């Protein structure tokens, strides 16, 4: 009977759960593509356009882009406006300008690379952001799984939701981007004056949050999930989400829908075949030269939201221990400025 049980268990595991292992697919490739990544909105501020060559898979650290330095980058409006971007001397390939766009006006990005290639974005009319972020809230959820010895363990996640009133509003597609900021309390053995750091981070946002209200029957979107992340030590105190809601054109929404599809492809027999995503960038010099990326002209709404997981009865452990137990703390526990993008200055908007 025991043998049968194990046979059944084995069958079930391999049948349904399957097994996953990394393989060498022998992808030989020498293609490099020009990448354009830029955004400009109706909110005045410093915006950037990033120009790179894509990495070649299998050559060195194939995650590193090659910056395109020395290019000429301009934003031209149909109203005759023109803004020239300046390359950041400390961050080659990144071109910056203090600007904004006017809803209803058409804009086009024009780039000339050092080797003479002319690249333009398709003229895009800046959309009017008509939808407000009505409400942000969060919840703590748990996912149960089995550990290596077969016991059920529970892992907590922080989920962020948005609600939007649509009644009487002109509907347009939206995309969300998040930035994170958290409070970090120093702790440890023999630490007399523990300080608090405020650390900005790019959220682990390797997913797409897009929404098309035209596909929704009701006059309100309730609790659309923007983000879900592990409840780590960063939630031990206060965590702040900076939420940016971009009003998109239909063309840009289609682009992000395809990106979402591509990012979520599992490669199973039942997945559609991946393909090349065509953005809004055209190589005027070489019609076969593929340019990847997107230059976004958007209308922007933003909000920030503070998360205290204790409001939901949860508790996120600090990575720093007090007293004798703190002998194994990482160095940042007693010197929080070691953490990238940290500051001892409390932001003026920080919630008490």
């Amino acid at each position, binding site marked *: 009977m025991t043998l049968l049980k194990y046979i059944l268990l084995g069958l079930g595991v391999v049948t349904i759960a*399957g097994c996953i292992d990394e393989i060498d697919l022998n992808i030989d490739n020498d293609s490099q593509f020009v990448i354009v990544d830029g955004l400009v909105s109706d909110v005045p501020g410093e915006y950037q356009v990033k120009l790179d060559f894509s990495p070649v898979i299998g050559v060195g650290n194939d995650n590193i882009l090659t910056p395109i330095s020395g290019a000429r980058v301009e934003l031209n409006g149909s109203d005759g406006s023109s803004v020239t971007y300046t390359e950041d001397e400390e961050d080659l390939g990144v071109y910056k300008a203090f600007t904004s766009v006017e809803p209803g006006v058409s804009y086009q990005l024009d780039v000339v690379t050092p080797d003479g290639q002319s690249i333009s974005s398709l003229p895009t009319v800046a959309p009017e952001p008509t939808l407000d972020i009505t409400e942000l809230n969060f919840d703590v959820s748990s996912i149960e799984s089995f550990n290596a010895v077969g016991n059920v363990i529970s892992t907590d996640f922080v989920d962020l939701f948005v609600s939007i009133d649509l009644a009487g509003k002109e509907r347009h597609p939206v995309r969300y981007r998040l930035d994170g900021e958290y409070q970090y309390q120093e702790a440890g053995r023999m630490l007399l004056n523990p300080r608090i750091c405020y650390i900005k981070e790019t959220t682990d946002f390797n997913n797409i949050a897009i929404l098309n209200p035209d596909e929704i029957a009701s006059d309100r979107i309730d609790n659309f999930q923007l983000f879900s992340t592990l409840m780590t030590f960063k939630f031990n105190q206060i965590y702040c989400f900076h939420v940016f809601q971009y009003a998109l054109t239909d063309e840009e929404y289609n682009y992000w829908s395809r990106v979402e599809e591509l990012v979520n492809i599992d490669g199973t027999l039942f997945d559609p075949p991946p393909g090349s995503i065509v953005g809004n960038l055209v190589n005027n010099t070489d019609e076969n030269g593929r340019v990847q990326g997107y230059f976004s002209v958007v209308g922007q709404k933003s909000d920030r939201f503070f998360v205290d997981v204790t409001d939901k009865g949860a508790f996120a452990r600090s990575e720093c221990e007090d007293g004798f137990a703190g002998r194994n703390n990482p160095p940042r526990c007693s010197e929080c400025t070691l953490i990238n993008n940290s500051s001892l200055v409390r932001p003026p908007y920080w919630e008490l």
Partner: protein
Amino acid sequence: MKKNLIFLFCFLILALNCVAQTSLPDTIFAGKASTSTQGKLYDIIGEVVDANDESTIVGATIQISNMSGGAVTDEDGEFRLRLPAGTYDFIVRYLGYEDFNLHISLYKDVGFSLDLKPSSVQLEQVVITDKAANENIEAVVMGVETMDIKRLESRSQLFGETDVLRSIQSLSGVTSVGDGASGFNVRGGNSDENLILQDDALIMNPTHTLGFFSLFHPDMIESVDLYKGNQPAYYGGRLSSVLKVGLREGSKEKMKVRGGIGMAASRLTVEGPIVKDKASFIVGARLGYMNYLLNAVKDIDVQNSRSSFFDITLKADARVTEKTKIGFSSFISGDEFQFADEVNFDYTTRTGTFYINQLISDRFNLTLNANVGEYESSLFDIQGNDLSRFTNKVSFVRPSIRGFYEVKEGLELTAGASYDVFNVSPGTLTPEGEGSTAIPESLPNEKGIAVSPFLQVDWSINDKLSFSASARYTKYDRVGPGDVLIYRDGFFRNEFTVEETQSFGEGDVIASFGGWEPRVSLRYALSETASIKAGFNRGFQYLNQISNTASSTPVDIWKLSDTYATPQTSSNYNLGFFKNFDDNSISSSIEAFYRDQDKIIEYRDFADLLLNPNLERELVDGVGRSFGVEANFKYNKDDIQWEVNYTFSRSFRKVLASDTQLAINNGDWFASNYDKPHSLNVNMTKKLSRMTNLSLNFTYSTGRPITAPVSNFSIDNVLNIPIFSERNRFRIPDYHRLDVSYSIGPFGKIEKGQEHKLVFSVYNLYSRRNAYSVFFRQVPSRSISVFRISTLGSIFPSVTYNFKF
């Protein structure tokens, strides 16, 4: 007219003989010798059945002693001989049965039924038989594979289940895109290019449980015929192949029960007479139960998943008069699969067949056939705020008539017509639950009508040369109601290039197509043991599965050809050489094929296929070509059988479009999803002892093509977006595995018809981790890594208990 009356008279005599006899003596006296009988030819019509269960035996040989020649029983277990008056000794043989010696004094037409007794040790699981030992040499049409239940049982058994689809994938020219794929691919064609029939009823999805089981109840199967090359003229509408599964008739003698209990599915069959010796029924049911296996997996999502299926097959037949036979069969199946709390889908198949077979004369046979059926699938999105159910359905009605007429010995005519009506419901989205934000949607139904008359001539001109030629004409109308958007000529179809909308009322012809589908096969015998054959056929396809995934899914929609999705066509050329050795115990063949396809349906990148009212904007026309060579070798001697099938083949597509965004791979040829250049299957079965048999199966094929990322980029510094290669530029790793099957039995009171049997099988003996799929994931410090999911990446032992009483 007089000749017809003679035929009729002869037939009456034969038919009466058939009905009158119940048991057969070893000697038959058919008339008496006289001067009037000298030199005359008389017909012998016989039926060969299993003495135990009265099931017909297909492929039994009737050999005339001291003469060359004989006959082989057809798919109804019947044979026909025409011989000069005289006395003859016959030996009736079929592997696994005792030889039957028969003496006939032939001085008038005679008909009878022969009961073959199973040999004391049946060779179930071991015997591989074709219709005749030299069938491969003598048959005019090539590319035809016939498998009876014994041959099926010798093939790979996952979970101990004898499986039609898994078995035919071991044949040359037949592949699938991977473990768990729905359907199969023949000579580089899509899975929807196969016409799959069970008792002539159309099966839209031949699989259970996402492709791990086939729909066909193994204990109900009489025979399985796969036409890879030329198809009989009666069949049409699909470009690649015809898979014809025949259901057997129930016993007309006594009630019988058989079944099997397996680890993932069990089955039961009951059969018996309705009117003894005249009418019978057979009903079989299967139940698949994977839930307890899922619950045993230590993964919460898997534990919350469900998978189950059932099917019920029923067949009844009756010989109403000595000339008339009627019957019907019905089939219903249901599947349900749910993964965690995310998605649930189910699908059902329902078919019904009714037929009347009327013998008009001893040379003229008429069959009326009516098939109805439907396939319905639904996908339930049970996550998020927009809970909804998507359903789609296709149904058909197909009355047909066909007549067979033997003009003279060696010259046969088959003619008839079919009338197909298809109704397709391409999709309905229904919100589920009160709080759902999903918007209800429904696409208009589609209706198509196809009328196909045909004529087929089979002629053995002499001992060496014979041919089969047919002309089939299909007239297809896509009928209203419906609206058709007319786009600006020469422009990419989108909302901006719409010029007008044409509306059609109920029954109006929206689009009409028609064409000849010629089919020709030639055979030239080089000797008694060698022949060469050639064939050509052309066909159209009007009903297409809309799927841009590597394997079709149970919820893929079907679409009728219309103004923009015009009928696909395929011209197929075949050439083969066949040679047998050692008294036909060794047979070999080599066949070459070339397929030229036009108007094949391809999809633009990121095609939106679900609930799209303007599907024509997502589809692009393509052309295709496939070619290959198939080599087969069979050895069948003493207690061991070998079968080796090797195929080299290529399959390509090309999509040219005026808009560069629609052209795939810049308009160059690219490998289709089914392009697997090398494919090898080796099957060995050996009788180890009186009650034990061993079977080994090895299969190998080149990995299927995939599109892989060749670079990547990031947006907002965080989101990594892969840049993919041209379509299908790379391949997943090669596929291979070895399966073993060991059977004990039959044991029990065999002489009383009570049998028990145990089958132990091991699937994937050396635990090859074949890629079910390949996916790409970013890992730290590297852009993209390649991972393989091996759904069946381990050894699969199973045991099945089969019984019969």
